[in-house]
């Protein structure tokens, strides 16, 4: 039985109202703000802020850092997530224990993860240099977070650790949905482990891989706490991503027009990136 239309609106109204007021207004305000539009009609609307973005080396750097971080982190998440999902999908004893351990990094709030890794990568007091020195891998302590390239790499390593269980969980759910008969049929046909993986697992997992990669990429594009806690965008602006760039422009330099234009660019990137996910989800819901 399908309910009456008018009742339906009462049910969805409170949530919709919240969404339109708390998220809708800021979105409209940010877009108008980025165009330097004002209701009182003082300054005239213009695209100046957007034009400035493309000539600003700091913005281009933030864009580049975001791309490197997202590319590095998401691909490592996919590899690690897939490997661990396959391990956890096997029939082993103590599976519940291993599954708990597998989720653990993801339970850590990202800024706390950033702070802990800042300490681990510390030149003098950090655990990483201590272990590497003790094992004789290096002779001098390495200044991980003080050199631009290394700092970016350290950030990728830290967020790879913290975030991969999320991808793993989505892939694990996909693995469990693949019917066992398909593997049995493949085994009867004489398929080995690799062939079963290549011709049964991967095709059965395609949708979930797309979802995992898209959602993870969206999360990583917005990465804030981890960067803020671990490097604060430094050294200089070497690890500053778009989120941090917008935050600084808005809340430290109070250049709201400029900050909004960069934020709108980030939002546009995210919505385009999320398209495959939105389409898959809405299609499945019908």
């Amino acid at each position, binding site marked *: 039985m399908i*309910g009456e239309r008018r*009742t339906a609106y009462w049910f969805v109204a409170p949530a919709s109202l919240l*969404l339109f007021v708390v998220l809708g207004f800021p979105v409209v305000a940010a877009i108008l703000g980025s165009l330097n539009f004002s209701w009182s009609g003082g300054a005239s609307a213009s695209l100046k802020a957007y034009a400035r973005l493309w000539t600003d080396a700091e913005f281009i750097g933030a864009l580049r850092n975001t791309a490197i971080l997202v590319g590095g982190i998401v691909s490592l998440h996919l590899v690690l997530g897939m490997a661990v999902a396959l391990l956890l999908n096997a029939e082993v004893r103590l599976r519940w224990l291993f599954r708990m351990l597998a989720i653990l*990094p993801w339970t850590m709030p990202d*800024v*706390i993860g950033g702070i802990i890794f800042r300490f681990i990568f510390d030149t003098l007091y950090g655990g990483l240099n201590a272990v590497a*020195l003790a094992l004789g891998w290096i002779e001098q302590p390495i200044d991980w977070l003080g050199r631009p390239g290394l700092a970016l790499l350290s950030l990728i390593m830290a967020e790879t650790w913290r975030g991969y269980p999320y991808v793993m969980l989505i892939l694990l759910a996909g693995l469990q949905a693949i019917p066992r008969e398909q593997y049995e049929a493949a085994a009867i046909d004489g398929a080995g482990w690799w062939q079963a993986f290549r011709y049964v697992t991967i095709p059965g997992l395609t949708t979930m891989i797309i979802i995992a990669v898209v959602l993870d990429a969206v999360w990583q594009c917005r990465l804030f706490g981890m960067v803020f806690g671990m490097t604060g965008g430094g050294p200089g602006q070497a690890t500053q991503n*778009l989120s941090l760039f917008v*935050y600084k422009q808005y809340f430290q330099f109070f250049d709201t027009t400029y900050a909004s234009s960069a934020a709108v660019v980030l939002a546009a990137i995210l919505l385009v990136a999320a398209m495959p996910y939105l389409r898959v989800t809405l299609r499945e819901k019908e």
Partner: protein
Amino acid sequence: MPRARFTWLSLYVALVAMALYNLLPFFWMVSSSLKTDLEVTSFPATLLPRTLTTDAYVRIWNQEGFPQYFVNSIKVSAATAILSVTAGLFAGYGFSRFRFRGKNALMLVFLASQMLPGVLLVGPYFKMLSLAGLYDTHVGLILAQTTITLPFSVWMLKGYMDTLPIEIDEAAVIDGASRAQCLLYCVLPSILPGVVATMIFAFLLAWGDLLWALCLINDPAKQTMTLGITNLVGQFRVLWSDVMAATVIGCAIPALFYLALQRYLVQGLAGSAVKG
């Protein structure tokens, strides 16, 4: 059988390697928090504390404001969880049980709003709050967190409701129940585990937030846990044993909640993402 035994063994070796990889940063955090402040700044660093001490925990807990951060975080996260699940329950029911004009568009808006970056919203929202006189209040922060957790609450709860047969509602309506009674007395009890899972997700998302608290809270007495810990590092001299003790406290609640919830995690995450 030697081949089978080899496969079996390598499986466990891989699982143990995974466990070690996941636990190492936790180990470092806990180990450092139990060191003396002299040892934590010795070079090269020691892996295990030479002398065990809980001084750092005592210091951090007695530090002005720290227990307050804890209380603030619980308050903000709990209010967020309750509000977003309440609003989500009604909206989820509307989406699950009714057909109405604009339904698909509205569902798309809920889904797409999750893709918006926080930094786009937080600036204008900050201005809105200042105009409304709600800047630097927990109400303003809770309202923001609620709206952020709302879309996935709606989608998750709708997913749980879709698994219930619609006949339940029909029977209740024939017996003279209103739609709201239907939701509260027939649907809600059947999906209670799902409701609890959704609530805990919302709680933890709010607990882990830094950006919104950073931009909307100014008064040190109103800071949340994550913000308080972040400011601890921003201070002139970082005392790592104290900071690590603080992070242990900050990590404990989410870790315990997630582990208690892990049965729902796989369904919850992927279930709300693809399946109905």
